[in-house]
């Protein structure tokens, strides 16, 4: 365990070297947030209520979505893929650590900058557009628990997509495909209740809603009590399932390692 803690601490320091890179990569996400805020502001700004969302709740929903989107974003993503692509994975594989756990430790270590920056952006939005509703202590506890599951979940989705680099040279394609699927089915941009029935049904059996919609709905109080607990259980269920699936994929991928040129 100590070795993974050290790895996390190392990455927590190393990410500081990529401040600018990280802030730039966050810009894309911020523009997305601002665009969504602008659209929903127009739709709900004059006191309307759509599918149970008024303007203040929608804002809170989008901000939670933004926070979840910032976790394990660009830098961790490209770092994991890049190490496989340029063959640095060879060095990682000669270390007496479990590859998946080591990658997770590094992601956890680097996550603090993502949280800090995302919270700063949220604070800015609130200062600018006014307060958002807050859940009671019970809702806040459930929210914290739900948010805790988002980190490993996002890690696993990103990790599995990075493993695609063992099979394809074109990580950009994998990256974009993942972004599109995740932003649609996680409900980070548009709450899933706004989609047609079949999309909602599909989203219900996919892991992506657990990465954003669940904590966001808990925050604004649309998911409460037993129902919220059930959804949180689903989140952790996905963590376990994806963790095991990633192991299987890795076991297959590792047979395909072809590191040429030294």
């Amino acid at each position: 365990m100590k070795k993974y803690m050290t790895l996390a601490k190392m990455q927590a320091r190393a990410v500081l070297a990529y401040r600018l890179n990280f802030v730039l990569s966050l810009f894309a996400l911020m523009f997305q947030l601002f665009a969504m805020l602008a659209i929903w502001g127009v739709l709900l700004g004059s006191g309307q209520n759509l599918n149970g969302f008024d303007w203040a709740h929608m804002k809170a929903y989008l901000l939670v979505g933004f926070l979840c989107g910032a976790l394990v974003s660009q830098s961790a993503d490209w770092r994991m893929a890049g190490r496989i692509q340029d063959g640095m994975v060879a060095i990682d594989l000669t270390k007496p650590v479990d590859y998946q756990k080591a990658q997770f430790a590094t992601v956890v270590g680097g996550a603090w900058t993502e949280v800090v920056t995302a919270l700063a952006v949220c604070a800015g939005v609130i200062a600018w557009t006014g307060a958002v509703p807050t859940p009671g202590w019970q809702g806040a506890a459930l929210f914290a628990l739900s948010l805790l599951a988002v980190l490993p979940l996002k890690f696993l989705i990103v990790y599995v997509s990075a493993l695609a680099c063992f099979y394809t040279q074109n990580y950009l394609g994998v990256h974009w495909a993942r972004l599109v699927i995740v932003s649609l089915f996680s409900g980070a941009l548009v709450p899933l209740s706004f989609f047609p029935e079949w999309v909602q049904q599909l989203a219900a059996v996919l892991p992506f809603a657990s990465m954003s919609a669940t904590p966001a709905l808990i925050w604004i109080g649309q998911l409460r009590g037993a129902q919220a607990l059930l959804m949180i259980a689903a989140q952790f269920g996905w963590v376990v399932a994806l963790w095991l699936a990633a192991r299987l994929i890795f076991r297959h991928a590792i047979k395909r390692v072809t590191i040429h040129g030294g």
Partner: protein
Amino acid sequence: MPIIEASGLTKTFRRPDKREGLGGSIAHLFTRRFTDHVAVDHVDLTVEPGEAVAYVGPNGAGKSTTVKLLTGILVPSSGEVRVAGVVPHRERTANARQIGVLFGQRTQLWWDLPVRESLALLRDLYDVTDADYRARLAEFDHILGIGELLPVVARKLSLGQRMRADLAAALLHRPRVVYLDEPTIGLDIAVKDRVRAFLRELCADGTTLMLTTHDLGDIEDVCQRIVIIDEGRIIFDGSIAQVKDSFARQRQLHVDFTQTVPRAKLAELLPGAEIEGDARAFTIGFDRFTHTAAEVMTALLAAGEVADFRLDEPAIEDVIRRVYAGDLDLAA
């Protein structure tokens, strides 16, 4: 009991077969054709503890693929491999504990952190005790002079400094088997000598060394045994002294006379020697097992007054160069 045992070790890569140009690339989308490329072809290798083996071959011969098979990075297509009783690709982490690896072209240092941090991480990864860690650092400082590098961010190191720090990183946990890929690349001569002396010491202490290198100085200074691989197959495996005795027998004596000496006269005095040059400057090639340098010198002095001379010893380098060029078949 050998520490490295490989038999019939084979690794085949599948390479996409694309025809020329855009058309070829598009055609490949529909009819995917691949050719199998055998990078390592039925390699048999046994290494005893404490041996220093030079593993050499021209570019693309399969050197680093073999090392990656032995370190557990690659899974062999067929064949058996065991390192200190462990099958590397099956028990990767168990294998990782007992080996040290240096890929000269890549660094395992954390690029954005001081060297000290990378080494401290390795201490934790390999469960090295604090006392042992400090002792090791002192040792590395003495031999590799890494003390001054510890507070420096890895990104800011020169190639030579980086290599020294990387060597320390690879050897920190006192591995039983060490694989070094081009360990002296980019080092200046003084540091090179220190690194080689350090490697010799390591071997004397019972560490097994496997060196892949193009630097023939590394081979002669550090290793007792040489394994030559070409096109995935081992074409020679034996002691360096043996290679020299069998194939590096030709010494060359360069001589300048004070006055013109006819070439025919030299040929007469030195039967069996290869004589090149004319007038006053000659190069005499002779087998060090059939003539001594003194015999050749005596003959030259009989031919005329010698102004200057220089003797070239045969080097393993020449042998390997001839093998790579296809002029010499060591197996024959």
